[in-house]
């Protein structure tokens, strides 16, 4: 549940935990690093632009790794770029998140077999929190991935590790199959 859903009508007083306020602030201003590697970056830019408007989620690309919370690895990571990606990741302040966007950065994509120059998945060099499948993923998919990062932030607490937060997120997660089935049935009956 979001913080703003709570009733704050009485004298603008709101009682909550520090974790909640911190997490709400952090997930409402996830600043990704403004860099793209291939065609996925075009889709990422489209997501940033007015049609999909990432700024409504407080997501706004920063020009420096020092000011970024999130790295969107958007595109093909070549062997030449791999070392630079590591360096950029290390320059980001903690807590930091990584979203791997598209087949190339997930696993090498179409360069899986014969791409001598391509890293077979960015998770070989840096830890990845969310994978977004697609070639390239549509803006809706990217937004879905970013929502997943926000959920992960919401699960975090002072004193618990990222792994434990991911476990908590896992326990809370729903199987979307039933929801989709339900929606389909609803659509068929009307």
């Amino acid at each position: 549940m979001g913080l703003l859903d709570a009733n704050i009508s009485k004298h603008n007083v709101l009682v909550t935990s520090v974790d909640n306020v911190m997490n709400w602030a952090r997930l409402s201003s996830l600043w990704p690093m403004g860099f793209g590697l291939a065609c996925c970056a075009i889709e990422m830019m489209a997501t940033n632009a007015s049609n999909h408007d990432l700024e409504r989620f407080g997501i706004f690309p920063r020009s420096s790794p020092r000011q970024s919370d999130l790295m969107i690895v958007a595109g093909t990571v070549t062997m030449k770029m791999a070392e630079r990606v590591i360096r950029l990741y290390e320059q980001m302040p903690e807590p930091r998140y990584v979203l791997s966007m598209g087949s190339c950065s997930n696993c090498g994509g179409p360069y899986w077999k014969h791409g001598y120059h391509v890293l077979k998945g960015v998770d070989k060099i840096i830890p990845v929190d969310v994978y977004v499948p697609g070639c390239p993923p549509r803006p809706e998919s990217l937004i879905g991935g970013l929502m997943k990062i926000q959920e992960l932030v919401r699960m975090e607490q002072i004193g618990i590790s990222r792994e434990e937060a991911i476990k908590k997120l896992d326990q809370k997660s729903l199987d979307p199959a039933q929801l989709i089935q339900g929606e389909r049935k609803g659509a068929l009956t009307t």
Partner: protein
Amino acid sequence: MEETQANAAGESAEITTAKAVWQVVRDAFGEAVSELDANPFMPFFEVLERERWRDIALFMRDDPVLLFNYMACLSGVDYPEEEKLGIVCNLESLGKHGHKIAVKVKCEREGGAIPSVAKVWKTAEWHEREAFDMYGMIFTGHPDLRRILCPEDWEGYPLRKDYEVQETYHGIKVPN
């Protein structure tokens, strides 16, 4: 359309001009160039004495009848069964005569060298760097012969037919 017009012998205007172009080069350089391969797609001849390739290039660029002022492309080729590497240069006389031709130059597969034409057509500078990067032939007289796409400490030449990718690069595993 110029391409579809055929003369009395039934050949296209492009081939007729390519033959005329080749004849001019043959008259100037004799046996240094091969016969013309008059295929309908891209007529070409080969430079057999490759140490004369730069003179031939300069001649083709500056001769008033030829005026090949534009290098459209320079590609590398691997010929493992001949134990050779080569380049294919697509030349065009842009805005002057409008004719096109391709020139091939070959060298040995191991340690072979081809004269650089980077000073003749500026375009060739990066194209030759790319051919060097992918196939490993040396371009003698090139102003700045470094790898252009692969990292400078990359091992091997990726577009050779017998290329085997290296296992690791700076501690990162390369093949999956």
